[in-house]
């Protein structure tokens, strides 16, 4: 359904973000304008300090922007209250973190159903969807395992299942392979490729060139500005 929408999933207009620490004001993002259409697979790259983490937090509605405007899937999120933003994060965005961020005391399916709890779904419906999402990432036989009983790659796949379970407009992955060995990295990236082919919109933040090259489009940041925005599909063809 996201592919049918004519609106961009992400529409940033001249976004800036300034952090004030005491008397010092640090401008982490200095005027970024970009638009990401449904079904795109975008990698955001840049050296540390380039503002890519800040941009990721803005895209994830975790941090308000200082100036500019941000429309996410047709909604102006720059003017939303805390509770409205919580709902946007819950319904529109699926997060994948470098540290996996699974709750160690809960079995895989309870981790996956967590966003659905906050969406207020019934327990049997949550379980059904959590199991389907785990099957989707190839963990149908690990439903009741706790994170401690899973390998790093499996844990990250549980986290991806959690990101997919709400059927979000945007999957936002922050260095998803940063803590994985090469086999697990290949696994996870193959999974992202699959998701991309099935029409998901994916924004992936990474500093690894190999990882970035799997994406259809690469945006490189430097000093809080877009340095390069290249459509690789166009380059390849």
């Amino acid at each position, binding site marked *: 359904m996201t592919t049918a929408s004519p609106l961009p999933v992400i529409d940033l207009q001249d976004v800036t973000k300034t952090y004030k620490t005491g008397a010092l004001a640090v401008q982490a993002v200095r005027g970024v304008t970009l638009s990401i259409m449904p079904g795109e697979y975008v990698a955001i790259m840049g050296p540390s300090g380039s503002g890519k983490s800040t941009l990721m*937090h803005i895209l*994830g509605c*975790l*941090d308000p922007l200082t100036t500019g405007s941000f429309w996410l899937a047709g909604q102006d999120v720059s003017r939303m209250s*805390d*509770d409205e933003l*919580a*709902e946007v*994060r*819950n*319904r529109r965005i699926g*997060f994948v*973190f470098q*540290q996996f*961020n699974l*709750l*160690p*005391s*809960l079995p895989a399916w309870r981790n996956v159903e*967590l*966003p659905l*709890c*906050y*969406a*207020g779904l019934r327990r049997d419906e949550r379980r059904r969807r959590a199991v389907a999402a785990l099957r989707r990432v190839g963990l149908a036989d690990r439903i009741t395992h706790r994170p401690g009983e899973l390998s790093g790659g499996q844990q990250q796949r549980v986290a991806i299942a*959690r990101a997919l379970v709400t059927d979000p407009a945007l999957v936002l992955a922050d260095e998803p392979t940063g803590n994985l060995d090469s086999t697990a990295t290949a696994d996870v990236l193959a999974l992202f490729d699959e998701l991309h082919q099935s029409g998901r919109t994916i924004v992936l933040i990474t500093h690894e060139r190999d990882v970035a090259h799997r994406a259809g489009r690469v945006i490189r940041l430097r000093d809080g500005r877009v340095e390069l925005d290249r459509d690789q599909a166009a380059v390849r063809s």
Partner: protein
Amino acid sequence: MSWLETLRTGLDAVRSHRLRSGLTMLGILIGIAAVILTVGFGEGAQARVSGEINALGSNLLVVSPGSATATGGIRGGFGSASTLTQADATALASKTVAPDIAGVAAATQRSETLTVTGTNWTTTVVGTTPDWLSVRARSITEGRFLTAADENTDAAVVVLGATTAQELFGFRDPIGQTVSVNGLPLTVIGVLNAVGASASSSTTNLDDQAVAPITTVANRIFGGSTRTSVQSIYLEAASSGALSAAYQEANAELLRLHGVSVTSADFSIASQQSLLTTATSVDKTLTELLASIAAIALLVGGIGVMNIMLVSVTERIREIGLRKALGATQRAIRRQFLVEASVLGLAGGVLGTGFGLAGAVVLPHLISNPITISPTAAVGAIVVAVGIGIGFGVYPATRAARLPPIDALRSE
């Protein structure tokens, strides 16, 4: 997130940190058990004292000669036992003078040795009138009590307390036997009911006395000034509500009869109620002291909950950030931590009440004091424990709810 879901999350968190949760509960547990036991101890003591005093007749007023310290004899002439007379008692018995007084019994008493062939027993000999039985709320288990005829004829008869009868006659039937007092042979006509151990407030053993007609005692046993004067006049108010009216009437009539003013009154009137008040107020003070120490224990337990919850918030800062990223609102996070705190409070409260109840069963055997526990106190304790959990959980929960999601996610 539904309440049920929040409760499940809270329980998960409590379960996954068993030791920490257990120690937190322990604080509440000790506090609640201590409060339950001290309050139960106080209530038990009060119930016992008021039970004992009520057994003496709760509508009872006692008129004594001289000042309040008269029986101590320290006040000398003012406290001498000759200011109350049989005439005073007769006047107070009048329904027109004192409509709120239901019964009057004048009494004079002295320690005497009772002799039965081969056995001596020293006890309190009380000379009084037939009304004494109802005024003192006593009854007869065997034989009969004194009658007006006994009184009019200075009859040589006596009614014994249960202990006295036992000491003098063992298991023989005392009725019809003869007891000598000061050389005067008295026929035993009845035995009083046993009221148990003496009240903690009185020095006389109520089961160890010999009651004879006041005329017999005054004229044939004691002699001297006791022929007309009496040591106490017992008054029974018509009801416990009429106690203060009866007091006023007796006071006014005696002032008038003795021709004295309030400031120079040569008698004093005490009620069992005032005894009861004094006795229970001492117990109450003790209970309040103990309970306030217990309450401090409970407060410390509550601060323990807050402390642990704050540690928990700091420790789970990533979890909070993650939950917020996944769509938890501030309210949902606050509720989660409040539920966790109240689960700790509830568990501590229930366990503490359990330990308190167990203590209430075991302790009385060790300290020989009754412990009364009311269901209200037990339920109240649990409610208070949950309240403490919530009360001391509010601050940590609010802190958790206000954490910005990125700060929470970023921290390692």
